[in-house]
């Protein structure tokens, strides 16, 4: 008997999801396993498909505005910013400087909120429960700020065509000052509890490594791409809103493994914190809403493609208008969809236990995948 035939192992299939603690929603994979090793993986998405694009085509621009919040509910403000930007570009509206700054502050707060959830959930995926609560503690700080400005905690509905819904309340400034002061120390806590943790590093270093060319080929964007060493960030390379005036250096890491994807997000929280500080200091005076914008605009014919750097990557919106009060075509290019499309290739040959950090490190959110 040769060693190969001496013992025969049988492959078996494991169904992961759509209800499973670490698929972060309703994602389903059918795994073919050989013991603890993944032989094949068949991803299934679409459990949360709400046909957002079709709904957009059947609604007024203003009607879809609050719905855009629901596309990616953990970073909802980015979806509405893209929606407003697209309409503004087609209608050629000049947004007042203060409104641009306010949008930028809210986006960066939202980015921190989203990344702190990632921090917590990623640690939870690896079996460490405590960081999860730490992540939510920091999210609460940003949520407070967002809540007092927008009145909402998840789906903010803050942007309007030509500006934002409302100016900052007076209580915002002392609170944001406090936040700016305490936040770096909290991030140091994160470093101490996970980055320097032997087991955490062993679980994530050199796991799920993706080199730059493959990441680009699969359409990866955002922190995932920058963790693979591609020095590109919309906030610097294609500045929109107030980013052009603020000056921003993206976080670029080289290894492209789970550890770097995690680090990229932690470092992005630091740079977001810097941006918020700069924004609040340099906040210009003036109106927060461009004048004479119809609430129910007829958008001139034309097509635009708007890209917004959401926490998950480039959130793209292709808007085709035929001059009516509804979009003719509303294509959402959501970052999670493309980030997730590599999952099969990434999972082949890994241990069952590695599925969780690999999937978690992509930081996909299922409503963003399925739309």
């Amino acid at each position, binding site marked *: 008997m040769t060693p190969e035939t001496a013992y025969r192992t049988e492959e078996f299939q*494991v169904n992961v999801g759509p209800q499973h603690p670490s698929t972060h929603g309703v994602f389903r994979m059918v795994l073919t396993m050989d013991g603890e090793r993944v032989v094949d993986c068949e991803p299934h998405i679409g459990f949360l498909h709400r046909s957002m694009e079709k709904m957009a085509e059947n609604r007024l621009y203003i009607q879809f505005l609050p719905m855009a919040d629901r596309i990616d509910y953990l970073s909802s403000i980015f979806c509405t910013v893209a929606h407003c930007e697209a309409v503004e570009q087609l209608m050629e509206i000049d947004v007042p400087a203060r409104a641009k700054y306010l949008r930028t502050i809210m986006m960066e707060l939202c980015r921190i909120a989203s990344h702190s959830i990632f921090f917590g959930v990623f640690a939870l995926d690896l079996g460490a429960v*405590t960081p999860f609560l730490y992540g939510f503690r920091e999210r609460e700080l940003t949520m407070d700020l967002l809540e007092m400005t927008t009145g909402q905690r998840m789906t903010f509905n803050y942007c309007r065509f030509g500006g934002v819904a409302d100016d900052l309340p007076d209580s915002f400034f002392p609170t944001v000052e406090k936040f700016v002061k305490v936040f770096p120390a909290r991030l140091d806590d994160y470093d101490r509890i996970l980055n320097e943790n032997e087991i955490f590093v062993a679980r994530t270093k050199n796991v799920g490594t993706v080199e730059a060319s493959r990441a680009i080929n699969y359409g990866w964007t955002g922190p995932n791409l920058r963790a693979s060493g591609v020095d590109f960030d919309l906030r610097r390379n294609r500045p929109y809103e107030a980013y052009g005036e603020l000056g921003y250096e993206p976080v670029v890491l080289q290894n492209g493994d789970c550890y770097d994807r995690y680090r990229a997000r932690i470092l992005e929280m630091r740079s977001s914190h810097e941006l918020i500080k700069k924004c609040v200091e340099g906040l210009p005076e003036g109106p927060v809403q461009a004048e004479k914008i119809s609430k129910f605009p007829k958008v001139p014919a034309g097509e635009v493609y708007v890209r917004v750097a959401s926490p998950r990557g480039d959130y793209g919106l292709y808007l085709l208008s035929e001059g009516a009060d509804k979009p003719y075509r509303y294509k959402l290019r959501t970052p999670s969809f493309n980030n997730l499309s590599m999952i099969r290739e990434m999972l082949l040959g890994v241990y069952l236990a590695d599925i*969780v950090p690999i999937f978690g490190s992509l930081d996909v959110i299922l409503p963003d995948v399925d739309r």
Partner: protein
Amino acid sequence: MIVHPVLSWLKDWWVGIVETYGLPTWFVPAAQMVVNAILIAGFIAVLVLFLIWLTRKVSAHIQQRLGPMRVGWHGCVQTVADALKLVQKEDTTPRDADRPVFNIAPFLAFAPTVVAFVVIPFGDGAIVRDLNIGVLFLFAITTINVIAILAGGWASNSKYSLLGGFRSAAQLVSYEVPLILSVLGVIMLAGTMKLGAIVEAQNAMWFVVYQPLGFVIYVIAATAEVNRTPFDIPEAEQELVSGFNIEYSGMKFAMFFLAEFANMFLVSAVAATLFLGGWKGPWLPGEFWFLAKSFAIVLLLMFFRWTYPRLRVDQLMSFAWKFLLPLAFLNLLVTGLILVLM
């Protein structure tokens, strides 16, 4: 110092009864056994309820939460409420499960833990049976736990629980080796396997001073032995959802749970007995010192639990075989050399 006088008073009382009514003489040891069994079962039940509450509180305060606060003072009877809830739960058995094995597994997990408490010295004279092969008995009996987990995982006929069972078998068998090797050092120093005698041998100095490496290895291996984070891969919630006990509900699930927490206390109690001088301590009664030392180790395990992520299955194995085992042998060698040379 508390338990022993009570027990001997009880014994005298029974002897009196036996003499008064002319009962057969085997009645006295029989009655003693029954009382001991009741005492241990009661102790474990109360202990587990307390441990679960403690786990929740410790985890909550580590995570900047309050934990249970509603039922009783700071939620102290919350676990009683939860236990009542579990008892009321429907007892489901999967259609394709291997019924007899499925039903036996939870009790197979719990029984050895109770039996193992027989040789633990809770205080001066407060030991059910001070067997002269106490340590051997202890590790032999707790190993049965593996079979229970494997049986539970297998009989559930679910892939997740099967994977959990396999992982558990691999892990427990691997960590048994460094665990026992680390204890061997203590046995060499004490020259006996009798737990009571081992405690007596630590009269002058705790064995942790002579066996620091052995103690560290023991704590690590024991953490793995009771499936606590960072070695909780058999029940890895995020991968296997809940591992071997995924299909269990109600009282059977509670049995696994009970066994897990009782086991956690057991390994802590053994650590306290073998390395930290057992019930020996100044002024206060021995039972207090024993519990204090055991709970110190329990708290240590809890701090591990709420601080560390989980290891991967291959890392876990290589850690046991490539790191802990050589270290345990080294510890044994050095202990032996010192004993021979001195």
